[in-house]
């Protein structure tokens, strides 16, 4: 039950974009078309799940036993950067079609604060292994859901009559605000 609660809360209630404000850059930058939003969402979900596993292992097997807690920030960022690189090379070798779909989005993910935020939150909340995996997967799906919804709305917005200064980022943020408001309705699902 605990795991289900973590999963649902990561997708809907404590959505990474709309509640923690993590991953805003791709959320605004790659949400112009639904297709690219889906690819970005999948790439993030993929990397997030792997990051949850790897950062959990590093934190619990290397940093904590040796009292190196203060190296958390440096080691996490380096691990994430090299992990993304590795994943990119691996996908290019194993599945060219998948690489075609995710290719250009993977390098962007390195500087995505959602990934780093995930690693830090897993460490902060002292999750167990299973919880970390579920949290990583759920957060990724939550990000995917938010960015796809955003892209769908923005495709419609192209036709709307928007005041000149609000065009682009301004109106996107206001739309995000209304989405965050809607997602607040899910709070009752988790006690």
């Amino acid at each position, binding site marked *: 039950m605990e795991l289900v609660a973590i999963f649902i809360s990561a997708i809907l209630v404590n959505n990474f974009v709309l509640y923690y404000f993590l991953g805003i*850059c791709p959320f605004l930058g790659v949400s112009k078309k639904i297709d690219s939003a889906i690819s970005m969402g999948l790439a993030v979900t993929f990397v997030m799940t792997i990051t949850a596993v790897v950062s959990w292992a590093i934190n619990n097997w290397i940093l904590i036993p040796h009292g190196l807690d203060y190296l958390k920030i440096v080691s996490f*960022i380096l691990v994430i950067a090299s992990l993304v690189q590795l994943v990119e090379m691996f996908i290019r070798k194993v599945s060219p079609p998948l690489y075609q779909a995710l290719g250009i989005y993977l390098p962007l993910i390195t500087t995505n*604060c959602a990934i780093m935020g995930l690693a830090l939150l897993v460490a902060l909340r002292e999750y167990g292994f299973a919880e970390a995996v579920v949290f990583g997967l759920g957060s990724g799906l939550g990000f995917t859901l938010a960015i796809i919804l955003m892209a769908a709305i923005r495709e419609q917005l192209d036709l709307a009559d928007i005041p000149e*200064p609000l065009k682009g*980022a*301004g109106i996107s943020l*206001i739309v995000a605000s209304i989405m965050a408001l809607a997602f607040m309705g899910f709070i009752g699902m988790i006690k």
Partner: protein
Amino acid sequence: MSTRSIGQEFTKGLWNENPVLRQLLGLCPTLAVTGWVINGLAMGLATSFVLIFSSIVVSIIKKLIPSQVRIASYIVIIATFVTVADRFLAAYFPDISKDLGPYVPLIVVNCIILGRQEAFSSKNSVGRSLIDALGMSSGFVLTLLVLSSIREILGSGTYLGHQVMGSWFTPWIIMILPAGAFLALGILLGIALHIEKKTKSRI
């Protein structure tokens, strides 16, 4: 090399190239910690500390860093200063550090800092990099201050924890919730663009 005067190097960060309002960088901390002025200020100062010292170090050792691994080197330098800032806040301001939670360590992925190293410090002298970092930091702190002031006054009727609105005022709770952060920043961006257009057309 840059042809700007020292003064322009500083002031460009305040408005023309303001990291948040004009370049749309560092939006995550901008949205996340601005529910209270004190948190916004702490975040702004912590980020400034990291930006200023990273810029100094990067501009000093720019010739020593091979260009293939420059991004990784910048990240290590930034992460070092972030660790210092994180430990400092945790030791001297435990309450603020707890409030900011994972957002202090997340300064390491703040695109403003990496962006300035890549775009400026790696190409300019120590002095210019310092001025540039000071300007960008001031722009960032000011933006956080404006946004958190709006959100705290409207959202809870207080400023830095002191009651400023009369008893007639019903706090707009929404302003301190995530939805209010998006709304306030969206409108602020609109206003900034509007002012920019107005001043441009006058010249």
